[in-house]
């Protein structure tokens, strides 16, 4: 699953640390999610989408391998 967190973060001009503070998670977690290493829980994914005021499916996009 890929995501557009980095793009949304750039639009809002906030750092990973600032986003992490807002969402009460560690900076490394945001970094791992951004890089696509770590797939966040539904709750965290919805929190991120709500923070950026975008639709969930516009922020997180399923890839072909996710269906395997």
């Amino acid at each position, binding site marked *: 699953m890929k995501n557009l967190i980095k793009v949304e973060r750039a639009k809002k001009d906030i750092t990973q640390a600032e986003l992490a503070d807002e969402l009460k*998670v*560690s900076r490394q977690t945001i970094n*791992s999610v951004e890089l696509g*290493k770590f797939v*966040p829980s539904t709750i965290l994914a919805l929190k991120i989408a709500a923070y950026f005021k975008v639709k969930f499916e516009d922020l997180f996009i399923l890839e072909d391998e996710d269906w395997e």
Partner: protein
Amino acid sequence: MKLKFLNLSSFGNYNTKKLGLFFSFAFLIVELAIAVEGVVNESIVTLTNLFFLMSLFWAVFSKEKIDDERFQAIRYFTFKTITQLFVFAVVFDLIKNYRIAPIYFAIGTLSGYLVIYYFCVIVNPEFIYKEKTRVNPINNVTLIVTAIVLIVALINLLASIIAM
């Protein structure tokens, strides 16, 4: 269903972890000093082992400052891995008949946990978060451990046959 996170309510707070790590390091130095100098007094060795174990227990069974889902996923992976290694160590001890004292198994397990846990926290390898249990019913670690146990058992069996 995947069990990816591990968040036990019995975990201590972050201060307990810091204390545990500090004392673990201190008692590790004492253990090394005893190993270098040789056993002076048996009761000192026993006490050091007990305090070392207690410190490790604090460090292992405590939460992070921000105990989010990534740390929980790493914790779950580490517990899973160290359990597999513990079983392997017990079997290896049984086969080789080393008769290692249980307290050293406990110290080794908790120390190993800390090493694997902090390695994963720092390096953050991707495979921790990707569990494909349906694709691979028997994972690589299980196969490797089984193969090693079988090889050791076979060597042991052959050695005992030759000795007869």
